[in-house]
């Protein structure tokens, strides 16, 4: 191809920014679409750190060990060649971030410091205080700002992805996007598109995810023919603060330092984890802890104050010790709950935390739609059935790097560029979206979209998270079909032509209901227990029948 290629990146988190940087290094011009300024993307929430086997403490760690633990942790569903590449690339990624100025913690000699994380014996996790994701996100955002300054990046902030433009030969040729403030719907031609739109925790109503993690772009692409893989694998973290608006993570380290989980039974404190698992006590693996807390609250109805919450108690520990070891975490609790956890036990409950499944991609990060790439939490290939701690930041950056390189090779190989595509193709795609939004604008039914979303979240959280029963999954599918019907009777609430966020939310809600179907049906069909997916009726892993990827297609 002769002309300079233009590509589109959707999403301003780690994966999208990294893909943008690498594409720019290859002299591609990038249009970067984000809902909010990139600094406000969900990557900002990651706390713990990023894995890289640099064997900095002389413990004999190696990329091979990292590779093995990632595959084992994912219960053998992750794609092994890309995972191996990721683990071998990890040390260079951490060095790169270091060169970009990420304020990683240092040893007294000035080297990068590493800490231990769940599920490994090695000090493999580089970290920047308790805000590693924030620091890395900012570093990448700054590099993208540099390319913006040099004219290679054009930012479209406040634009939501609404549809991919797919030409008659099946190639992705751009996107249709809507400006959430002006409500303009426009079509943007491009030679390739990289999706990096994150997970879909909002399907569960409240989760540890940000409010923007609706998975709506994935739902749209799924309906347009993209394959969606391993939807049923959703990671649930055992201890989060039960908030009205979201569930905020409370780190595992609280239990590591002596925190105890309990609730009342027959009027007396019941330390159910210690009683049932005397060897591990409160430090049972994440999936078991989540299941037990869920059981106590949902099945036995023994949650504190009759709600879905148990105590995570550190009040028996010395205050100075708590301040020294857990100051940062306890501060979050105090800030958001307005209670001092040194005096009053914390109230916690498991929370949906990470979407392992996502858009199906090949080893080049390309979906089954030619020229449509995906990287980060919105695709499926690095974590299999469960994700290892501190691997999420890594997979986002690695996936973004691969996508940035491969999109260049792809664009170079094209014989026809976006200019050669008939304008009617673009016009048709735009009109499809315009028509859809015109229809939404007229919706004056009885259903409040935010209330319907709350119901969707409650249904999904109750039936499709920690413990899954086929009977309940079947009921959930019926319920989701009912939601689909009720959606038709929605009231869009707002008739304004300016910053009408309800209008966009209605569209997101529609996508969330569709993806909820994919998650639930995947869970129903997988009659085994693997990684985060647990069915008491089928408590064992069944490699003969299920050592395979679930792939959903839309009909």
């Amino acid at each position, binding site marked *: 191809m002769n002309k300079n290629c233009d590509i589109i990146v959707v999403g301003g988190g780690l994966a999208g920014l990294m893909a943008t*940087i*690498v594409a720019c*290094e290859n002299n591609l011009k990038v249009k970067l679409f984000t809902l*909010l*300024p990139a*600094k*406000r*993307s*969900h990557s*900002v*929430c990651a706390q713990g750190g990023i894995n890289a086997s640099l064997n900095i403490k002389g413990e004999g760690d190696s990329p091979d060990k990292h590779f093995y633990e990632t595959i084992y942790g994912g219960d053998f569903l992750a794609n092994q060649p890309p995972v191996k590449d990721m683990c071998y690339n990890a040390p*260079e990624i951490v*060095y*790169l971030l*270091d*060169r*970009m*100025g*990420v*304020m*990683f913690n*240092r*040893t007294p000699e*000035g080297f990068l410091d590493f800490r231990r994380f769940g599920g490994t014996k090695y000090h493999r996790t580089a970290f*920047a*205080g308790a805000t590693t994701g*924030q*620091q890395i996100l*900012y*570093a990448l955002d*700054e*590099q993208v*700002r*540099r390319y913006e*300054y040099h004219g290679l990046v054009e930012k479209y902030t406040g634009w939501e992805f609404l549809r991919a433009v797919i030409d008659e030969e099946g190639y992705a040729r751009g996107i249709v996007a809507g400006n959430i*403030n002006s409500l303009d719907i426009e079509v943007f031609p491009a030679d390739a598109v990289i999706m990096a739109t994150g997970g879909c925790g909002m399907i569960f109503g409240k989760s540890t995810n*940000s*409010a*923007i993690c609706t998975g709506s772009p994935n739902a749209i692409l799924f309906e347009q023919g993209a394959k969606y893989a391993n939807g049923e694998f959703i990671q649930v973290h055992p201890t989060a603060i*039960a*908030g*009205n*608006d*979201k569930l*905020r993570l409370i780190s595992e380290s609280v239990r590591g330092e002596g925190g105890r989980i309990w609730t009342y039974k027959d009027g007396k404190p019941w330390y159910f984890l210690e009683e049932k698992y005397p060897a591990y006590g409160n430090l049972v693996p994440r999936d078991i802890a989540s299941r037990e807390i869920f059981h106590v609250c949902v099945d036995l109805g023994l949650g504190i104050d009759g709600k879905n919450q148990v105590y995570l108690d550190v009040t028996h520990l010395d205050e100075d010790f708590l301040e020294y070891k857990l100051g940062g975490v306890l501060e979050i609790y105090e*800030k*958001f*709950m*307005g209670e001092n956890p040194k005096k009053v036990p914390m109230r916690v409950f498991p929370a949906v935390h990470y979407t392992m499944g996502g858009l199906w991609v090949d080893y080049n990060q390309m979906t089954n739609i030619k020229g449509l790439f995906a990287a980060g939490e919105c695709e499926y290939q690095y974590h299999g059935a469960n994700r290892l701690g501190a691997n999420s930041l890594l997979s986002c950056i690695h996936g973004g790097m691969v996508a940035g390189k491969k999109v260049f090779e792809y664009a170079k190989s094209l014989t026809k560029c976006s200019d050669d595509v008939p304008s009617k193709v673009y016009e048709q795609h735009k009109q499809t979206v315009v028509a859809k939004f015109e229809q939404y604008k007229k919706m004056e039914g009885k259903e409040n979209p*935010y*209330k319907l979303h*709350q119901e969707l979240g409650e249904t999904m959280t109750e039936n499709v998270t920690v413990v899954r029963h086929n009977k309940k999954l079947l009921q959930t599918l019926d319920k989701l079909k009912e939601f689909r019907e009720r959606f038709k009777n929605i009231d869009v*609430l*707002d*008739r*304004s032509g*300016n*910053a009408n*966020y*309800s209008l966009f939310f209605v569209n997101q809600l529609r996508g969330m209901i569709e993806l909820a179907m994919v998650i639930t049906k995947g869970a129903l069909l997988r009659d085994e227990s693997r990684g985060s997916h647990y069915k008491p009726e089928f408590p064992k892993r069944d490699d003969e029948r299920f050592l395979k990827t679930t792939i959903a297609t839309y009909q």
Partner: protein
Amino acid sequence: MKIRVKIERRETPISTPHIDIFEVDVDETANVISVLMEIRKNPVTVDGRKVSPVAFECSCLEEVCGACTMNINNRARQACSALVKELGKEISLAPLRKFPIIRDLVVDRRKIFEGLRRIKGWIPIDGTHGMGPGPKVSEKVQRIGYKLSRCMSCGVCMESCPQVNDRSNFIGPAVIAQALLFNLHPTGAMIKEDRYEALMEEGGIGECGNAQNCVKSCPKQLPLTYSIGKLNRDTLIYSIKKLLES
């Protein structure tokens, strides 16, 4: 717990503002975001008018993204970490005043990011290909750098600064602190002169009136006045040197 929420609203940037009052029933753990979420589930005012849901921005809801910044009981802060039980039963919400209004509680904070571009807020690396570790940084520098790197571009410092107003184009405390962050890094320091030049332009560091509101209002306790003081000296030394060398 029943609370009354007064919200200053505008449908468009040029609409005359009006107040809508809502009564919301929330539990004792509620924050301002969950109050706004309750309102959109039933957007009816105390006088029984059905109105459009209040437009507001939010994302992380744990005070690291900066999106949900607004004036709450006349103080600029994040709505996610503003707890109802600390605010009382009467809560007033208004948009930030120092940024162009988009709608209701939503403002356009693009000028913060433009400021970051002006001061070349980045480390000029050669490329993303493997080149081994970065320059060594001492623990002492890391500690200052880490504090500065937590700035979430929320705009609270600019909201509280008397020098940020319609008659000035002051770049604001947050951006100046970021200039210091990049100058601290050995590679970032390679273009520190560009940053000095940018800060010495109109609307730069010279506009600071030393009111010191910024450092008191910053939700992340950034050493903002320290950063401004340090860069004041640095730019002064730089301009004297430049004068002598010319």
